[in-house]
């Protein structure tokens, strides 16, 4: 009984390979059942996302299982076996458990701390439960995995702080304005990154989008996209008076907004705060305006700086997360190894019961004239003797000691218990 992982991810395989071995849609159902059907596999689940494909199994013999799973993968997806061998990683036992914990806690993700992976792990587990392909080991393991990932999320700040420009802008906006609902934003110019930032703002509740562009047609087009309102580029200063968040990306070669203009505007705005994001290169807005009260100007480097700092912070938090995971591995293995002693205890008890029954039958045969009460007393005594005799070894087996494996073997030998497991 061993946890066993075979998989590949964005680090070991290109997108072409990942696409080929992905278990998407109906493939997942079928793959899961066929994987579980392999003779070497006792339990199975499949995690398939765009960044990784991993097969989690419970196997007896990792060497045989590894061979059989690889063959299955290459046949199922019709992929070259050599290509698979190059891309696959294999973990068993403690390394497998650690790997699964790290994946679910988003330590193995492309962007460390990204939150989707835990949901994907949960879905994969639910799918396996639905198809009844998991059992005692994987069920327990996945529950532990999910709780560990949650612990990592709450006890470290691995998922905190934005690690993309768009999110960094939203995060800043939320620290300037309490919430973004009802706020008015302006998109000055266009560009992929500016539009992305605008979308982030809208999905966080920004109410109105005003679009200004050198070419009015383009402004109209974008406005339709954002459900916003197009304005003439010359008119953007008047519109800015009632705007809270400005995203600027015009491609102009000089500043389109100067400090004295801004100063005048702030008076008109009665000093209502304004957040200006200038992602144009070269910059389109006089950097000096950041010195004005209630004006917060960020350029692309400022935002990138924040993203870099946050990424660095996440990596520091990841170290804390690794420690939490190490702490959680141990209790899982304690539980797993306690499973092994259970069959021995059962066998021991069965053996004792068997002896008691045999001897009682013999005795009653010899002395048939015994009264009901006397019979009861004798049975009682026999039960008490075997209970007292098997109690110490049972207790020792239940105990969590380092030499339990030896103990199990010794007890089996001493009491002549041969049958490995009773099913």
């Amino acid at each position: 009984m061993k946890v066993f992982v075979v998989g590949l991810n964005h680090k070991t395989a290109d997108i072409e390979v990942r696409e080929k071995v992905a278990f998407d849609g109906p493939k997942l159902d079928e793959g899961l059942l066929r994987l579980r059907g392999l003779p070497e596999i006792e339990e199975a689940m499949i995690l398939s996302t765009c960044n990784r494909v991993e097969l989690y199994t419970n196997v007896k013999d990792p060497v045989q299982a590894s061979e059989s799973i690889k063959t299955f993968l290459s046949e199922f997806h019709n992929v070259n076996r050599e290509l698979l061998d190059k891309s696959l990683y294999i973990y068993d036992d403690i390394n497998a458990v650690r790997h699964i914990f790290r994946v679910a806690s988003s330590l193995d993700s492309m962007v460390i701390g990204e939150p989707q992976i835990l949901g994907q792990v949960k879905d994969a587990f639910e799918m396996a439960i639905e198809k009844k392909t998991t059992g005692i080991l994987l069920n327990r393991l996945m529950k532990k995995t999910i709780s560990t990932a949650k612990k990592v999320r709450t006890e470290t700040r691995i998922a905190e702080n934005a690690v993309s420009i768009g999110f960094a802008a939203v995060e800043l906006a939320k620290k300037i304005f309490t919430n973004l609902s009802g706020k008015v934003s302006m998109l000055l110019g266009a560009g992929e990154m500016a539009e992305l930032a605008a979308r982030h703002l809208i999905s966080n509740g920004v109410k109105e989008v005003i679009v200004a562009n050198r070419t009015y047609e383009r402004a109209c087009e974008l406005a339709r996209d954002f459900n916003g309102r197009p304005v003439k580029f010359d008119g953007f200063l008047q519109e800015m008076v009632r705007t809270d968040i400005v995203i600027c990306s015009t491609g102009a070669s000089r500043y389109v907004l100067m400090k004295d203009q801004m100063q005048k505007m702030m008076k008109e705005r009665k000093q209502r705060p304004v957040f200006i994001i200038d992602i144009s290169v070269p910059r389109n807005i006089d950097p000096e305006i950041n010195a004005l009260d209630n004006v917060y100007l960020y350029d692309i480097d400022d935002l990138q700086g924040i993203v870099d700092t946050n990424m660095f912070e996440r990596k520091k938090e990841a170290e804390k997360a690794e420690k939490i995971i190490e702490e959680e591995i141990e209790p899982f293995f304690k539980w797993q190894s306690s499973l092994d002693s259970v069959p021995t205890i059962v066998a021991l008890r069965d053996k004792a019961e068997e002896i008691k029954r045999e001897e009682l039958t013999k005795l009653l045969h010899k002395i048939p004239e015994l009264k009901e009460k006397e019979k009861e007393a004798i049975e009682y005594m026999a039960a008490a003797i075997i209970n007292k005799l098997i109690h110490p070894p049972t207790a020792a087996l239940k105990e969590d000691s380092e030499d339990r494996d030896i103990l199990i073997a010794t007890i089996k030998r001493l009491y002549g218990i041969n049958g490995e497991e009773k099913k």
Partner: protein
Amino acid sequence: MGTILFELALIFYFVATIVGIIELFKETKITSKIILSMAGIGFAFHTVNIIYRYVTAGHIPITNFHEATSFFSWCIVLIFFMLAFRYRIKLLSSFIMPIVFALMLSSSMLPREIKPLSPVLQSYWLEIHTVIAFLGNAAFALACGIGVMYLVQEHYVKSKRPVGLFGRLPSLQTLDEMNYRLITLGFPLLTLAIITGVLWAESAWGSYWNWDTREVWSLITWFIYAIVLHARLVAGWRGKRAALLSIIGFLTILIAFFGIKLLRKGLHVFL
């Protein structure tokens, strides 16, 4: 008995202050709960202490400097809890409890005996005037603490290095609105305190205004907060300027409060 209650309040406020300062450097799940419960227990002892003194003396215990300082900090904690329950302003306690503790500490060092009430003070105005005045000042104390929080947060946003407390401090807008709200609470109370003071002066000394040190400083404070409110409504002085002014305003209150004691001049010498 009254002393022990006061001492206990002081100790619990002290623990709340220390944990509050720790919270600024290290975030844990429990610190904010510890602060609130420590401050809460301190406040309970403090309240009983004030009631005890009220019952023992037979009049509101704001008649010597020890009592006044103690009552001042009691009012701050009261308004702090009202705010904490309604708005959940993160880290507020870390900025307020030090003010509370400092006031309580100075109060603890002042003579505590209950002296017979001087005839000037024997008036129903005593209770009305002092309670209003201290509640107003307490609102300004909180506005000051929030003003400091605003300046810290604004520094993070302006310097473009959102690290440290940036993530945990409330947004600039929240802090600015809270600051404004507290000043609009404190200002009418201050105005009322001055009016009741004037009426009391007339009934005690026969003249409405005596240009005594406290009266002058109250007027200065009143003008500062009048400017804060006026400039905000007319010229949109908000954010950093409002925060700075609310800090200056509270410092003025403190100077007036402790300055008079040190100078021992004027008609308000009993306080």
